[in-house]
């Protein structure tokens, strides 16, 4: 049967076969060893010998004293002498057991976040196959004991042995001190430990994921090699279909471009962009019993995805088109690193019961990337400007809403979402922002975002659209409108009262200065006008923001010192998983530290290689856009410049907060990146001879390729 296939068919079968073999070997290797994890639970009750605390005569202070004993005994169990006794009683090796006693009392979060030294100890303990976790009830004298072992029987024995081991230790201590047994604290077990297997499908999950990733990467690698080899062969024929399409997109059927089109996909995309800018979708949820939260974007995005697939399957000239750019490669590399990080640490994550967390985050990453792919394939080059204009309009509406929130304490986005959405949805946003004062006493002015920093990031990424619009010149009326838009965006950023309101737009301006020094200099007087209007729109906000940098304790306020402390505290995580990290999405801030930096989160979760891949996503947008920007194409260079500035802004805010955890900002960046991909991979337009001559010795942009390039380019894609 294979003999009947064409050469390309046989090649495909060979690639699939080799990839499948590699995938199977990788899956086999990654699932070798003990992957079953069982857990058991029991509770210990700390009581007076006689009369019991349950007795009606007991006073509240008696209960408090016993609760403190329960907390103390939890700490006691997590020490070597107790663990040895427990291991002896449970019949498990005493050098393979570890324990952690969690702080359940209401203390400041900075005291519960592990320092570098404590984290190093936690990492060592987390590798033990037999583990105990002790949690004292914050009110009652009850100690919860959670045990973990490779089998249910061992986990239950370990749970039971914990209480017995504690009793043994206390009895021996009392004996050594000559303390009468009748006056000792009584520790009773509230029922035998009940266990179950908690990683029943670990082999299947790890094996399946490993196979898929190894298969996919091998296939992609081999396919790239084949393509490279073919590219070197001379191209002689250009399919008529492709040239027809090239001519169509180059000249642009103006009457079929969005918004003057009946194509469904661009309209759905526009709707999605509007939702990202105006709806607090991350706080809107459809209650369900599914393992994932049904947030609004997770309901809308699949619809867009299905429409995209249908459009793709239908084919024809109006179908989405693949245009491979550096941005695609960088995003692909990052996704590959994310999956590899989970696969390499799969056994460890399974042992620490964090595999499920990572497996839930990977589909979210795919969802992010799918937004980029949909934009990059569905939008036509001639539609990019319209989508940029839509983005700016929505950003201005969003900015006005944020300014309104700053001035009136009313979050219109949350209020209107609650009113307009059907009752089945629950909206959890703060309507006023007053409830969420931070440690510096700043109100949570957030607009449709979840935190102020996210709102700043969103607006800052839209700011270059307004600034580049001003730079481009054109009719005065249009320039005034762009100027007003810039004022609203900057005023809205300051209205969030975040320090980033200075840093994020600065990143945008620096990028514009780099590429368009002279033009931007001519706008300097306008800066003064903008400053005055901004101060009028958000009174007090500019001063309040700048003051945060100038106050005497600027370096020691919690928002700064917490961030700075993270850099030292994560060193054990970095050094223990240097290359690929501990697994994408596996670092739970609630368990470890709240890291206010995507750079640090990437370093921990995806290692140094994953961090470089993440940074390359932003850098690739700038690199891909650069030739078009410096080519000064009258139509596309400004669009590429907007994308580059947004990418630099995204990289800067990545150092300020965990941006991937906040979908508004991430979606906006990926939409911008998708639009840049469309611009830089557009089909070359035939450049009139006169125009080419006038461009003289400047660097040749994509649009300035020679006629031979113009002919060959589509043919290469046709491969």
């Amino acid at each position, binding site marked *: 049967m294979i003999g009947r296939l064409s050469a390309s068919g046989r090649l495909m079968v060979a690639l699939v076969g080799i990839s499948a073999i590699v995938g199977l070997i990788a899956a086999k290797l990654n699932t070798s060893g003990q992957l079953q994890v069982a857990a058991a639970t029991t509770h210990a009750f700390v009581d007076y010998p006689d009369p019991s605390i349950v007795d009606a005569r007991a006073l509240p202070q008696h209960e408090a004293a016993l609760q403190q004993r329960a907390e103390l005994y939890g700490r006691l169990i997590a020490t070597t002498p107790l663990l040895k006794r427990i291991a002896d009683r449970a019949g498990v090796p005493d050098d393979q057991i570890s324990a952690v006693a969690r702080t359940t009392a209401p203390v400041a979060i900075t005291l519960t976040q592990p320092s570098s030294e404590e984290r190093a100890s936690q990492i060592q303990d987390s590798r033990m196959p037999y583990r105990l976790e002790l949690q004292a009830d914050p009110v009652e004298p009850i100690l919860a004991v959670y045990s973990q072992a490779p089998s249910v029987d061992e986990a239950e024995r370990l749970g039971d042995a914990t209480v017995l081991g504690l009793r043994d230790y*206390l009895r021996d201590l009392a004996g050594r001190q000559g303390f009468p047994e009748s006056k000792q*604290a009584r520790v009773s077990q509230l029922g035998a430990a009940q266990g179950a297997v908690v990683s029943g499908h670990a082999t299947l999950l790890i094996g399946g994921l490993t196979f898929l990733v190894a298969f996919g990467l091998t296939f992609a690698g081999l396919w790239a090699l084949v393509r490279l080899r073919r590219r070197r062969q001379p191209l002689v024929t250009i399919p008529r279909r492709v040239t027809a399409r090239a001519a169509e997109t180059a000249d642009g059927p103006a009457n079929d471009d969005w918004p003057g089109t009946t194509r469904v996909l661009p309209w759905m995309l526009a709707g999605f962009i509007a939702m990202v800018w105006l709806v607090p979708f991350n706080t809107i949820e459809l209650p369900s019993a599914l393992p994932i939260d049904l947030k609004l974007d997770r309901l809308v995005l699949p619809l867009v995805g299905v429409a995209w697939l249908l459009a793709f399957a239908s084919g024809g000239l109006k179908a989405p088109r693949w245009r491979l750019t550096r941005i695609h490669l960088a995003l692909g590399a990052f996704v590959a690193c994310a999956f590899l990080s989970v696969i390499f640490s799969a056994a460890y994550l399974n042992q620490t019961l964090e595999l499920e967390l990572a497996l839930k985050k990977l589909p979210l990453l795919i969802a992010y990337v799918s937004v980029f792919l949909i934009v990059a394939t569905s939008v036509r080059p001639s539609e990019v400007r319209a989508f940029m204009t839509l983005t700016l309009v929505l950003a201005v509406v969003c900015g006005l809403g944020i300014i309104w929130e700053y001035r009136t304490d009313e979050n219109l986005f949350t209020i209107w979402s609650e009113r307009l959405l059907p009752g089945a949805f629950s909206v959890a946003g703060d309507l006023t922002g007053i409830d969420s004062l931070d440690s510096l006493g700043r109100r949570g002015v957030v607009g449709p975002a979840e935190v102020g920093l996210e709102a700043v990031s969103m607006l800052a990424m839209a700011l270059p659209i307004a600034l580049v619009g001003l730079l481009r010149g054109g009719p005065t009326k249009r320039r005034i409108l762009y100027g007003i838009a810039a004022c609203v965006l900057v005023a809205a950023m300051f209205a969030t009262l975040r320090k980033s309101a200075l840093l994020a737009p600065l990143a945008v301006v620096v990028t514009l200065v780099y590429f368009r020094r002279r033009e931007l200099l001519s706008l300097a007087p306008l800066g003064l006008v903008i400053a005055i209007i901004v101060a009028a729109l958000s009174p007090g906000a500019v001063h309040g923001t700048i003051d945060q940098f100038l106050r005497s304790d600027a370096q020691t306020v919690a928002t700064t010192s917490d961030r700075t402390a993270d850099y030292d505290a994560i060193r054990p995580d970095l050094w223990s998983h240097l290359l690929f990290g501990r697994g994408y999405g596996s670092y739970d801030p609630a368990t470890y530290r709240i890291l206010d930096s995507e750079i640090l989160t990437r370093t921990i979760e995806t290692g140094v290689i994953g961090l470089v891949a993440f940074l390359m996503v932003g850098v690739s947008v700038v690199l891909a856009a650069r030739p078009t920007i410096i080519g000064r194409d009258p139509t596309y260079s400004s669009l590429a410049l907007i994308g580059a500035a947004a990418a630099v802004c995204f990289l800067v805010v990545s150092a300020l907060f965990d941006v991937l955890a906040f979908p508004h900002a991430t979606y906006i960046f990926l939409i911008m990146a998708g639009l840049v991909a469309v611009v830089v991979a557009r089909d070359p337009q035939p450049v009139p001879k006169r125009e080419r001559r006038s461009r003289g010795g400047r660097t040749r942009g994509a649009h300035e390729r020679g006629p031979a390039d113009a002919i060959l380019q589509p043919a290469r894609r046709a491969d």
Partner: protein
Amino acid sequence: MIISLVAASVAALWSVQRISLFPLELTPRSLEVATASTHVVVDTPKSALVDLRQDTYGMEALRNRAVLLGNVISSTKVREDIARRLGLPVEELRIQAPLTEEQSAPPVDSENARKTSDILQANDQYRLNVQANATVPVLDIYSQTPSAESAEVLANAAVEALRTYLNELAVAEGTDAEDQVQLIQLGRAHGAVINGGVNWQVALLVFMVAFSICAATVIFVDRVRAGWREASLSGTAGA
């Protein structure tokens, strides 16, 4: 290609070994991170662990005492004793005293002040972190050093030096044994390296980075030279 390979190999070797030319020798770099921990209950002679007559106020007093003793560990005298037990110059030892609700971060002018550049620091540090539990009189002592042995010695030395200090103080002030605070060390510290095999990872990473940079530089230089050649040829042809 060969130039890039050689340069990358030298860089990889340099990343894991200190290279000395006179005399020619290689000294391993400290890339490993070792940890050890021990726990101390601050107790009364009649242990509060079993004696239920110690009420919440008694426990609160002991907890405050634990914070105080944690701070004593970072004092000059005890610090010098710890460094001596470890055979280390005292200035190489970094001790973090317990943080509390009132002092939740190290002072900015202290040796423990946090900086973003901390992430780039070498691993040949001798660090001790003393934490006082917020609710019960327990001191958690964590050490971090380049080797398992030194981590173990450091954590244990902290307890021993504190105990020695308290004993000397009791003798000097004539405090009765039954009035002294008791330090119950709950098991000796046991050290372990958390990033075994890190040398290979670092060498591989540095090799890849150095090779990429070298290869890119070689290609760039080659292209520049080709450009010059082309320019000179076209100049000759034009002439």
